[in-house]
Structures are given as structure tokens and as C-alpha cells.
């Protein structure tokens, strides 16, 4: 995709590249340096006759886009880079990890039921009897059992689901709807919770304006209570000056302003230097440092640059 024979900036055969082209298409098994909006889902590939080819990991937002007739590309359902960052900002500034954890927990629950769902559906579709009576009943029972598990999952995680701005009841209703549709369809595929999913609506993200600034690769949201800055996306050469300027606005804060980096999925060493310099100056407290960023700070010799009490408390590691 990115080989230099084609033009990496425009993505080869299509001339001007669609803005919702997904550039992270091959690294789905490891999200953290890739797309900040990545959401892991299981994907069962199948032949055109519906024969399953094995399970893969894909992204909930990945769709097949058609640039021109018969020319397909990996399309991000969220839209452009800008839309993706707004979506993350909407899901919850600084709460993106909650969503990731929910997805991971859901995946465990879903994986346990998947095999049964697929087996029951396949048995029903291949049932030679005209009425398919027994297999149809079995499938209905498996679906009911799954919906019960789904309901229990939603109940168990209700507080966290509300935390990301979704009504638990709407999620249960949506699951029943999707499963009913899937149960009727004549294909061996998986129930998909996409399309009309409330979390997919990037247009509901915060408006770009005075307090929410979009710079290349990064969304910066100023918060007022407590005073601070939430960063979403990647910090690198393309936006370092903007980050430094935004941190500069926080000088003289007392108590220190809160800089939330929990949704930063890449930070250059120069970006780390800026964050650490602000933290040493006492103007800001950096929160939500992910394990990867902490490792990187250590490799850059910046954890030691902080006074010991700051390294332990200011740069609090996200659990």
C-alpha cells in the first residue's frame, strides 16, 4: 500500500485518495501505534459460497469502500482523520480506554457464543428437511441464550457503558434487533453490531471551535473544570509547535493544570520533552500515561529527569 512505486501520499491507482481511506489496514492485531480509533472485533472470512475460512481480527469501523466502479479500498466508517479524532473526543475525552476495556470484555463474552451461533446457523441452512423444524428451534434457542448473556453483560457493565455516553437499555434493544435480523438471513456470517450503532456517529463529536482545536494528527481540547488540556491522537513533528503553545497557555496554573494523554497513541521524544518540561515547571500534571509512553519516557532518559515524587505521582500510569 505504501510502497514508493506508488505515491504514498495519494495511494496509487485511484489518483486522488478518498479521505476515508484506512491506512492501518495490515496491523489490526496490534492497535496501539496505529489508528487511535481502532476497535478490535472478530471477523470470520468466508468464501462466496459462505464457507468459513477462519477467524481474523478486524476493526469495527472497517468497511469496503468503492472509489470507482469495481475499484475497492479499505474504508473507515468514521470518515477522515479529522472525523476519527472527533469521534474519539465524543466517545469521551480521556475515557477512550473505558471503551477499549468494554470492547475487550465484550469480545470475551461474544467469542464464547460465536461458535454455537455459527454452528446452529449452519445446521439450519444445510438442514435437508423442508420445514427445518428442529434446527430452526435450536437456532432460536441459541440466539435467546446469547441475548440473555448479552443482557447480563450490559447489566454487569452498566455504569461503564453510561460513562461513555450510551444508554444500556438502547444497547440491549439494538442487540435483539440485530440478532433477529441475522437469524432470518440465509447466510453463514456473523451478527454485526455496526451501521446504526450510536457510537459510530462522528457528527456528534465536539464542535471544532475556540476550545477544541484540530491540528495535523491531533485534537486538543481545553477543559475548564479542572483547568487543563486533553490530547487525542499523535504528537509529532507535524504538531509539536501547537502542543508547546497549548502547554504554554497553562503556565501559572495553581493547582497545576491537568494534561490528559490517555488517548495519545504516539508521542515523539520532542513531544515527551515538552510534556516533561511543563511537568517539571510545576504548571501541569500529566495524567493517563499509557504503558507504552512510560516505556518510551524511560528509554529517552526522561523518567529520571523528573524529581522522584513527580515520577511517581505526576506521571501517573494508567492502570
Amino acid at each position, binding site marked *: 500500500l505504501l510502497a514508493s512505486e506508488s505515491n504514498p501520499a495519494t495511494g496509487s491507482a485511484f489518483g486522488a485518495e478518498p479521505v476515508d481511506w484506512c491506512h492501518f489496514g495490515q496491523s489490526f492485531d496490534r492497535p496501539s*501505534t496505529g489508528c487511535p480509533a481502532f476497535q478490535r472485533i472478530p471477523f470470520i472470512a468466508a468464501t462466496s459460497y459462505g464457507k468459513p475460512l477462519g477467524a481474523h481480527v478486524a476493526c469495527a469501523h472497517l468497511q469496503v469502500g468503492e472509489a470507482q466502479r469495481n475499484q475497492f479500498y479499505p474504508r473507515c466508517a468514521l470518515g477522515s482523520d479529522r472525523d476519527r479524532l472527533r469521534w474519539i473526543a465524543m466517545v469521551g475525552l480521556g475515557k477512550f480506554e473505558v471503551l477499549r476495556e468494554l470492547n475487550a470484555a465484550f469480545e470475551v463474552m461474544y467469542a464464547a457464543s460465536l461458535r454455537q451461533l455459527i454452528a446452529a446457523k449452519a445446521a439450519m441452512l444445510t438442514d435437508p428437511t423442508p420445514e427445518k423444524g428442529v434446527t430452526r428451534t435450536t437456532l432460536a434457542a441459541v440466539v435467546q441464550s446469547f441475548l440473555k448473556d448479552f443482557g447480563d453483560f450490559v447489566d454487569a457493565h452498566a455504569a461503564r457503558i453510561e460513562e461513555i455516553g450510551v444508554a444500556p437499555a438502547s444497547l440491549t434493544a439494538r442487540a435483539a434487533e440485530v440478532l433477529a435480523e441475522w437469524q432470518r438471513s440465509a447466510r453463514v456470517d456473523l451478527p454485526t453490531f455496526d451501521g446504526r450503532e450510536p457510537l459510530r456517529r462522528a457528527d456528534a463529536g465536539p464542535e471544532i471551535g475556540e476550545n477544541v482545536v484540530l491540528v495535523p494528527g491531533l485534537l486538543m481540547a481545553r477543559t475548564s473544570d479542572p483547568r487543563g488540556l486533553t490530547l487525542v491522537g499523535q504528537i509529532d513533528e507535524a504538531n509539536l509547535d501547537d502542543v508547546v503553545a497549548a502547554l504554554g497557555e497553562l503556565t501559572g496554573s495553581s493547582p497545576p493544570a491537568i494534561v490528559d494523554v490517555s488517548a495519545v497513541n504516539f508521542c*515523539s521524544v520532542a513531544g515527551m520533552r515538552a510534556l*516533561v*518540561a511543563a511537568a517539571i515547571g510545576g504548571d501541569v500534571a500529566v495524567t493517563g500515561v499509557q504503558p507504552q509512553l512510560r516505556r518510551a519516557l524511560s528509554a*529517552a*532518559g526522561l523518567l529520571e529527569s523528573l524529581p522522584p515524587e513527580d515520577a511517581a505521582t505526576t506521571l501517573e500510569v494508567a492502570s
Partner: protein
Amino acid sequence: LSSVSGFRHEAVLYQSDDFVERIAPFISDGIANGEPTLVMVSRGKIGALSDRIGTVSDGLVEFRDMAEQGSNPARIIPAWQDFAVRQSDRGAARMRGVGEPIWPGRTSAQLEECHWHEALINRAFGMRQDFWLICPYDSALLEASVLDAARTTHPWVRDISGIAASASDAFATPQLPLASAMGEPERIEATMIFDRDNLTQLRAMVATESARAGMSASGVDDFVLAVSEVATNSIAHGGGGGSARLWRDRGDVVCEIGDTGIMVEPLADRTRPDADPMDARGLWAANQLCDLVQVRSGDTGSVVRLRRRARATAA
């Protein structure tokens, strides 16, 4: 000769079996003189040496596994410097070291960097400190070319027949070894031209290819950051951008960044950055995040090859 003034860097050629016999007295003499000593050799040799020397009080002798500390040879000089600074701060006037960075099984790329490391250490210490460092070389197992290189990177060479000054003074003014052109890969997996505006795509390329080669998620994060830092250096100092190419070498992923910048300070990639966060530290970080970083620089530009293990290879 029981102690030295200035930095003394000495190769000791031994014959496999006589390692303990040749090296232990050097450590014992240091203990007798009250000179703090850091020994960085393999785990097995640490065991053999401590058995011979016995218990040492006062923490005068410190052992460290060279396979760990020196897997990337660029991490060895900082370890010696940390030791020297720490002991000077404690008031030690003289100190000793035993370091064996080269053992049978080092890959050719690692060997090149080990020789480069041995040459650079002369520059890193100069005459400032009374530090006597000996580097054991197993002359029974290592190839003749390796021993020849050791004779040019060490001002002093000691073998079974005694001690002699090095035949060459190549060690005195180490240059970035551009002349030692690196081998060409057989098959390139991905290439791209980068500048300030498409670093994200460079990182995506490195992440994709590394994951495909089997690298762990945290490994990919580290490798991507290292490559991104070197590319950022190209943007800042190497003409605004450069070229990247990536390939696999046995179980490793290698990413090479080329630009038109010229590096002047050969110790730049292994000098521990200042505590001041404004001090640059991209190349330093790359050496902590990668298994090997090879820097070559000449009149026409610079090349940096970063390498990280993706999966274990059959021996």
C-alpha cells in the same frame, strides 16, 4: 605494572580454558589496591570468576551480564561512564574494568558495531580518568579477522608472550566508519520517501511490516518510535526528509533511514542525555529501544540502520 594513570584500554588474548587464570589476578590486584572494579562478561564467566576471587567486601567488585548490557554494543560505553562517574563521586581515584563485548555467535552486523564500540571507547574516556579497562578476547574460538580488529582498536594488546603497544594508531582518531559499507539486503519489503508531512505513514509502514514479521505489540511500539526519531532527525538536520527502506534479516526487522545530513560527533548516539529535558535524545532513545543501531556518515550523507528482533530464530 599494578596501576595506571589516565585511561588504559587493553585487549587480553586468552585461550578459552585459561580465562579465569588470566583475568582473576587483574581483579584481585584491584581489590588489593582498593580500586573499584566493574566486570561485564557472560553469566557463566561471572560465576567462574567469583568462585576464584571469593567474597569481596565493600561492594568493591560489581558484576554485570554482558549478554544483557551489551546485546546492543552502543549501550556499553554509557555503562562504563555511569560506573566511572559513580565511583569518582564516591571519591575513588582509580578504577578498573573487565569487559568482553565479543563472543562466538555475534552476527556480522553486531561484530561491526562491537569493533566500532571498542574504537569509540578510546575517545569516550580520553585521558581524564585513571581507569584501567581490559577486554578479554578468546583467541582460540574467535576468527583471526576479529583478533586483527582488536589489535587496532586497543592501544595495548596482551597475549601469552606479554604486552605490546598496538601496531596501529587507528584507535586514536576514530571516524564514523563509512568506509565499511554495510551489506545489501536481498529483498526489500517496503520503501518510502518521507518528510515532515507524512511521518504518520512512515510509522504505519513500520508498524505494519514489523507486526507481519511477528514482532510483539510492545516491540512494534518501541521500534516505531525509534524509527520515527531517526526520521525526525533527518527532517531537522538531514535536508528536511529522507528515504526509508525496510526488510527482514533472519528473525530481525531492519529499517534504514538515509538522508543528506552529515554527523560530526561519533559519540552522539551513545552519550547519555543531560537531565535537562530540552537536551536532544532521539538517537539515544533509539539505542535503548532497538537491538542494534548502525550509524554511517560521510561527505554525501548519513545512513542509520535500526534493527529489532521480531521472533526467535533457530540457532
